């Protein structure tokens, strides 16, 4: 038991701007679905789509 570590999976959403092709990673929000339109691009105000949703494991 002394070697066991608790794991937390942090979910992220990666948006890609269709205009400037910049990627933006943010925390996953419920309702996020791949390929759907997302927030406005913070660089050029273009439309972004959700390119990836993935999890990263954090060990406590």
């Amino acid at each position: 038991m002394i070697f066991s570590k608790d794991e937390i999976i942090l979910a992220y959403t990666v948006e890609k701007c269709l205009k400037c092709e910049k990627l933006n990673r943010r925390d996953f929000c419920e309702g996020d679905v791949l390929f759907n339109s997302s927030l406005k691009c913070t660089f050029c105000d273009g439309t972004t789509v959700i390119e990836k949703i993935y999890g990263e494991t954090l060990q406590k």
Partner: protein
Amino acid sequence: MFSMGDDSDPLMMLVWIIPIIIFVFYGQQIQLLVTSGEIKKAIKKLDKFRSDSKKELIDYVKKNLDPVDDPTKKIEQFLDYFTIMPVDMDPNGIVDKVRHTVRSREDYTRNHVQSLSPNMDEIELSRVQTLLEIASSLQMIHKIVNHMFLTAKKQKNYPLILPLQMMLPFIMEHAKAMNASIPAFKTGQPLGDGIGPMVVGKMMLNEEKEIISFQTALAKIDYEKRKLFLVKAEGPGSTVGRPDDALQKIVANNKIDVIVMVDAALKMEGEDSASIARGFGAAIGGIGTEKFQIEDIATQNKIPVFSIIVKQSVKEAITLMTKEIAEQADNVRSQVYEMILENTVEGQSVVVIGVGNTAGVPQ
């Protein structure tokens, strides 16, 4: 002259002889006692998984679906439902029988889950159905492990507990993975197993789609003067669709030259997660009926089947997709196109099937 003083001491002789006698006559019981401790801990964990998954399911239904009545009793009834597989003494026609049994169970579950809240949409329905399957599987695992343990204990039979002790790490790996998958299914996140639908789903984007078989989408596109029939489960609900039925319909109406399947596959120990491999044959898991039908169609029509797999562990396959797997999607897509160009000539037709659970992956 050469004797050691301690050896002739009757007390010291007893210290040696008594443990030997104990081990000769009670060795098995001692081993049983030691092993029992480990198994009891595992059973306690399995019991926690079982009750947690049930609680999560009931809470999800109560919170999100506005059920007509209290769903607890109904859900508990569903969890105890069992499936009796057809007899296989005469294997002739067994695949059709298994398919019928499994699909009847799926239809039954779907209808009864729907009855919990008549206004439930298809996506919620598929989520609840999956959560129900997880809770039901965890309940069954707990029941079987507990039964084997208690039987061995009751009979005081150590050899009976050995197979359980050997299998327990694998059983626990599966159970832990199933337990860890619940948050992803509840929030509709893509799973590691969804890499196939993710690759084909992106190829389908902005194309006209139709539902070709139950919960299965089809898009027809042209690529380098070849006709592509893109098939995947209809997302973003949690379903694997029926790609075998879809292939049957496509082949019945079109001349197909090549089938390409994209799927997640279990990696071997020591292999890198998210590594890609190409091969031949139908890459599809499950109970085997779909694989059988796809192979049957391919054989009857003399269509070669090529596969691209993305390797991952059991846990990675049914929990939220990892960064490494997600980052392979573009690479896999380019390998699909490469495979099509390598194995077909202009004017030919290809079916590309994205196999796997399409939770969180639309098209």
